[in-house]
C-alpha cells in the first residue's frame, strides 16, 4: 500500500481526490478557494487600516488558514513518508524545450536554476520569485479567485465568470511560457 502511495498518482486518482476535497469543504459549510487566504493574511496583519478590502472579520476565515496549515503538513508528509525520491517524470519534449532555455532535466520536484538558495540570492532568481508571487497575489484577487476558486469550484458550478478567468489564466501562462521565459533565460 505504502509503495503504491509512494509512486506518483495517476491523473484520474488525483482528480478524484481534489473533487473529494471540494466536497468535504462544502459538507463542512465552506467553499474551496485557496487565494482567499492571502486576503485573510493581509487583514490579520492590519491591512484593514489602509484598504477596505481588508477591513472585515478575518477570524471568521480561520478555517481556511487551518486548511493552509494542513496543506503545508500534507507537503511535509508527502516529502518525508510518501516519496520514492525520484524526479518528476515530465515528457521528453518538455525536457528538451527547457534544456534550450538552460534549465536542466528534473532531479527532484523543482528546477535548481530557480529554487535553490543560490538562485534566490541572484538578481534574476530573486525577481522571478518575487514578481511571480506578486502577479499571483494581485491577479487572483483582481479575478476574485485562483485555480481552486475558479477552475475547480467555479467551473463546477458552471459559472461563466470562472470560465473567463480560466481563459485569462491560460493567456497569461502562455505569454510567460512562450514569450517571457525565452527573454529571461
Amino acid at each position: 500500500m505504502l509503495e503504491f502511495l509512494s509512486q506518483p498518482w495517476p491523473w484520474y486518482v488525483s482528480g478524484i481526490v481534489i473533487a473529494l476535497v471540494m466536497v468535504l469543504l462544502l459538507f463542512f459549510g465552506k467553499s474551496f478557494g485557496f487565494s482567499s487566504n492571502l486576503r485573510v493574511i493581509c487583514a490579520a496583519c492590519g491591512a484593514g487600516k489602509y484598504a477596505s478590502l481588508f477591513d472585515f472579520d478575518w477570524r471568521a476565515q480561520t478555517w481556511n488558514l487551518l486548511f493552509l496549515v494542513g496543506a503545508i503538513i500534507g507537503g511535509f508528509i508527502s516529502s518525508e513518508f510518501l516519496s520514492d525520491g525520484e524526479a518528476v517524470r515530465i515528457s521528453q519534449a518538455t525536457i528538451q524545450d527547457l534544456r534550450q532555455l538552460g534549465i536542466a532535466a528534473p532531479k527532484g520536484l523543482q528546477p535548481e536554476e530557480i529554487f535553490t538558495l543560490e538562485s534566490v540570492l541572484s538578481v534574476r532568481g530573486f525577481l522571478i520569485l518575487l514578481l511571480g508571487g506578486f502577479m499571483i497575489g494581485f491577479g487572483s484577487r483582481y479575478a476574485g479567485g485562483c485555480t481552486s476558486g475558479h477552475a475547480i469550484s467555479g467551473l463546477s458550478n458552471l459559472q461563466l465568470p470562472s470560465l473567463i478567468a480560466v481563459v485569462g489564466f491560460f493567456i497569461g501562462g502562455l505569454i510567460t511560457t512562450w514569450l517571457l521565459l525565452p527573454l529571461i533565460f
Partner: protein
Amino acid sequence: MKGIKFILTGILFGIVMSKSEAISWFRIQEMFRFQSFHMYGIIGTAVVLGVIITYLIKKYKLRDYQGNPIVFAPKEKSVSRYLFGGIIFGLGWALAGACPGPLFVNLGHGYWAFLLVIFGAVAGTFTYGLIKEKLPH
C-alpha cells in the same frame, strides 16, 4: 477541536497536490507547452466530478453537517476583472510554477524559496486592495 477537520482536509489537499506532482514548476511548464495530458486530466477529472456533485447537491437540496443548506454564491457578472485579473495571475503562475495552494505545499517539502513567492503574493494582494478602485472591474 472544531478546526481539526479543516487541518485534515488540508493535509489531504497537500498530499494530493504533491503526489499528482501538480506542485512542480516542471509540470506547469509541461502543461503550458501542451506536451502532456497529465495536468489537463487532473483538472478535467476534478471539474467533471465537481459539475455532477454540484448538480446533485442543488437538485436534492443537500445540507452540510450542521443541517444548513449548501449554497453556491453566483459570481458577479463582468468580463474585464476576470480576464485582466486572470491574465495577470496566469503570468505569475507560469513564472513561479505554482498557484496559491501549491506555494504553501512546497514549503512542506522544504523548498524555502517559496517563502519569497508567498511574500510577493501577499504584497500583490495588498497592492490590489490599495488600487482596486482605479482598476476596471
